[in-house]
């Protein structure tokens, strides 16, 4: 049986989601959840993997509650997790602008923005919690932008018509992360968190059907150790780096979630990836990563390409009537602020027509000339100064003088480990939060919602729901390094690393990463077809086979060895890529960021097929290269009726 011949297993239901009116469900769940007596909490150990917005906020909050937290990050400091690079802002339904916003509207926008592939209960809870997040962050000293009266400022983001995005210049992620990092630091100093920086999770330990610990490698000494707990929380981020070029940090990786998947956590909607419309185009084969330009730029910048194909005049020599402001033309009511998936696809379309600009025709203009005329250069500088500087530094062009050139790039993954309403995976005791889970964004995430979800999960949702799990499992048996299951997982990890070192081939880890990344971008990127996906599915096992024959990793495992770290991550990309392609192949509809060329409306928009695909696809691992089992969780829409999304 080949990989594409997957079988469909039992249906999946979210056993934790309460019923009743949607605005009462979170209260109801919190009330029904069992509590752990404060005096008993210190007897429980919780492992948290990752220190981004989700992991940092979860670790700090669990420690404040009295749990003993053991936390890991691969970076040299928890302050460096990639949440730090989020630029634009964080959404919250505060309605400070009195512009008609409400919890219900944020809920509605998010479900619609996700193209009706997210769970209503989860999204509503997210919208409710959004208002508390802002309060929490302000109390921590997060320096949000303020008006002259001393109150908080907000701005608009794509896919919505209210101004609900709170921001700290173009560094909102940095400021929110430092808030969480500082709260975490306070708990580390208090002895409530045992922090392991420069340590990478390499496997999950499941004993008697429950997550009981992890295997981690100290990246400085190379020592591989086991750690045990009553519950494990994965906050290790998304898997966009499978594409090699993305806006993720260089070391962001999928190993924690992929290893958990191999140990029994089902992986949901892996093909739902977000291609962000406004990134700086690549310049050559040396390119190691792509840099995003905040979506907030679309508030004032106008996107255009020449009307004529192959028009290679410099932008300021192209007269107004020979320019095509295509987003404003096709989507007059949302204009440049359409959701990300729509903006990206539109950019691809005009470039495919031969109207792209810059080297290779892989770019469109984002022009601030009108904004500078209207607001003055000073105001533009105050609003976007750091982004303009960043652009100028990378491209050596002055965006105050010439329009920016932008092109879509992989940015975020909506898919992730399947979790129930409690954020628990299909492995009891294993929780997944933030980008590592699949739950809130459906098939497309709206701008400024990732920060909101990471912090909602970490500060508010997980600390409430994990109580219930721990209270119901108060006396778990002791697990030690001598346990046969632990010995087996440890041995597998050591064998894998030893094998990587032993092959001594003639290709670097990066060369394989680049090869699989380019394949994914071509066949599982902005537009996907049945034929293309089948081609990728044929090619991936071949690359994997070649990898284990030709990989070259210098040095040893008992030292600081960045090549070994990288090679081990590529092992997992080479399996995950296959599942992403299979998921994309099986979902023969277009929705959000998943665009199947076979399924489009007459005017080229994504055509959903609700009767067949209104479900979350959760995949169960069998073995490497063998077809997985599909479990469907039907999505029910009681409050937001699925319609063809319209931003015109």
């Amino acid at each position: 049986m080949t990989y594409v011949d997957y079988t469909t297993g039992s249906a999946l239901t979210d056993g934790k989601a309460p019923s009743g009116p949607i605005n009462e469900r979170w209260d109801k769940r919190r009330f029904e959840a069992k509590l752990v007596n404060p005096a008993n909490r210190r007897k429980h150990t919780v492992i948290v993997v990752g220190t981004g917005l989700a992991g940092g906020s979860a670790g700090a909050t669990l420690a404040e509650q009295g749990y003993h937290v053991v936390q890991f990050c691969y970076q040299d400091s928890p302050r460096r997790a990639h949440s730090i690079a989020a630029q634009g802002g964080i959404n919250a339904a505060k309605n400070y602008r009195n512009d008609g916003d409400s919890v219900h509207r944020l809920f509605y926008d998010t479900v619609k923005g996700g193209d009706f592939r997210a769970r209503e209960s989860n999204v509503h809870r997210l919208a409710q919690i959004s208002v508390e997040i802002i309060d929490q962050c302000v109390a921590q000293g997060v320096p949000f932008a303020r008006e002259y009266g001393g109150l908080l400022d907000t701005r608009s983001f794509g896919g919505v018509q209210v101004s609900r995005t709170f921001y700290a210049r173009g560094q909102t992620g940095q400021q929110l992360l430092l808030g969480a990092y500082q709260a975490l630091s306070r708990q580390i100093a208090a002895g409530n968190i045992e922090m392991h920086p420069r340590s990478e999770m390499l496997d999950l330990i499941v004993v008697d059907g429950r997550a009981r610990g992890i295997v981690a490698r100290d990246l400085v000494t190379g020592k591989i150790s086991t750690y045990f707990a009553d519950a494990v929380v994965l906050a290790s981020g998304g898997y966009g780096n499978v594409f090699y070029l993305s806006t993720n940090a260089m070391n962001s990786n999928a190993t924690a979630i992929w290893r958990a998947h191999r140990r029994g956590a089902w992986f949901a909607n892996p093909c739902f990836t977000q291609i962000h419309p406004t990134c700086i185009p690549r310049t050559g084969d040396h390119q190691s990563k792509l840099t995003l330009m905040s979506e907030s730029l679309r508030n004032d910048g106008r996107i255009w390409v020449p009307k004529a194909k192959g028009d290679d005049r410099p932008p300021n020599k192209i007269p107004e009537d020979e320019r095509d402001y295509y987003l404003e033309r096709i989507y007059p009511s949302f204009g440049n602020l359409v959701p990300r998936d729509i903006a990206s696809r539109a950019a691809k379309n005009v470039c495919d027509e031969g109207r792209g600009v810059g080297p290779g025709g892989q770019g469109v203009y984002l022009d601030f000339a009108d904004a500078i005329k209207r607001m003055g250069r000073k105001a533009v500088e105050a609003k976007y100064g750091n982004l303009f500087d960043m652009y100028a530094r990378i491209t050596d062009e002055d965006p105050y003088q010439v329009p920016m050139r932008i092109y879509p790039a992989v940015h975020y993954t909506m898919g992730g480990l399947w979790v129930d309403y409690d954020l628990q995976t299909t492995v009891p005791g294993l929780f997944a939060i933030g980008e590592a889970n699949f739950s809130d964004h459906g098939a497309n995430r709206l701008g400024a919602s990732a920060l909101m979800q990471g912090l909602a999960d970490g500060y508010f949702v997980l600390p409430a729901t994990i109580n219930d799990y721990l209270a119901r499992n108060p006396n778990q048996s002791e697990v030690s390094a001598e346990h046969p299951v632990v010995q087996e997982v440890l041995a597998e990890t050591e064998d894998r690393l030893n094998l990587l070192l032993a092959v001594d081939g003639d290709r670097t880890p990066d060369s394989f990463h680049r090869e699989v990344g380019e394949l994914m971008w071509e066949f599982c990127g902005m537009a996907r077809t049945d034929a293309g996906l089948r081609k990728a599915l044929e090619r991936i096992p071949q690359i994997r086979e070649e990898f284990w024959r030709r990989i070259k990793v210098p040095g040893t495992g008992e030292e600081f060895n960045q090549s070994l770290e990288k090679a081990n991550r590529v092992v997992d990309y080479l399996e995950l890529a296959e599942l992403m392609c299979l998921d994309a192949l099986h979902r023969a509809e277009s929705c959000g960021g998943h665009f199947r060329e076979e399924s489009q409306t007459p005017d080229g928009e994504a055509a959903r097929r609700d009767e067949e695909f209104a479900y979350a696809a959760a995949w169960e691992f069998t073995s490497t290269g063998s077809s997985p089992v599909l479990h469907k969780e039907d999505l029910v829409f009681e409050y937001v009726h699925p319609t063809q999304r319209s931003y015109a």
Partner: protein
Amino acid sequence: MKLTLRVWRQKNADAEGAMSTYEVDGISSDMSFLEMLDTLNEELILRGEDPVAFDHDCREGICGACSLVINGDAHGPERTTTCQLHMRSFKDGDTIDIEPWRASAFPVIKDLVVDRSAFDRIIQAGGYITAPTGAAPEAHATPVPKPDADFAFEHAECIGCGACVAACPNGAAMLFTSAKVNHLNVLPQGAPERETRVLDMVAQMDEEGFGGCTLAGECATACPKGIPLVSITSMNKEWLRATRKVAKR
């Protein structure tokens, strides 16, 4: 471009280090400095040699991981992070010296990678506002005057890279510490811990073995985020005020 690189190689914390010379060719001016090093490392791996270890992650100037002294300057000739330095700042035929941060409080782990955990301990000593999750008042309950909010933001921009320490002739961490003290102490939310924060953070800074400040100003020149030198003066003022206030208690 063809370049000669002289790179600090040191197997581990206990080993002796030395500069090693490498040639790289086919370097494009659009490459970032780290992409140039990637090119070298790909060649080294294929030759069966140990690639040069260096810290890096976001490669967009915000995570603070990258940390190279290039031709004697922390983060190199431009005022930015190493990852945002591009090869157009160099010429064909140049010889480039690449070293790790040099400071006794930042011991070398391997090659160009250093241990900056001392910074984490300074933050742990008081670089936070005690605001347990759930206890926060409504965000608009306390307006913050815009100039104070802007002042806080300018200092909160610090990315904790350590260039200030690497650039300082004394290996002092005053700019890093003052950035956090000033960010939190100017805000009304930070007021209740204003005195203990500055006293505890400065004490921890001293304990970590960072040098004293002689206002050489190299730190502020090297800072990729433009934290101003006057930040140190503000912290000294805070420290003096706190010392007197605590003495009165």
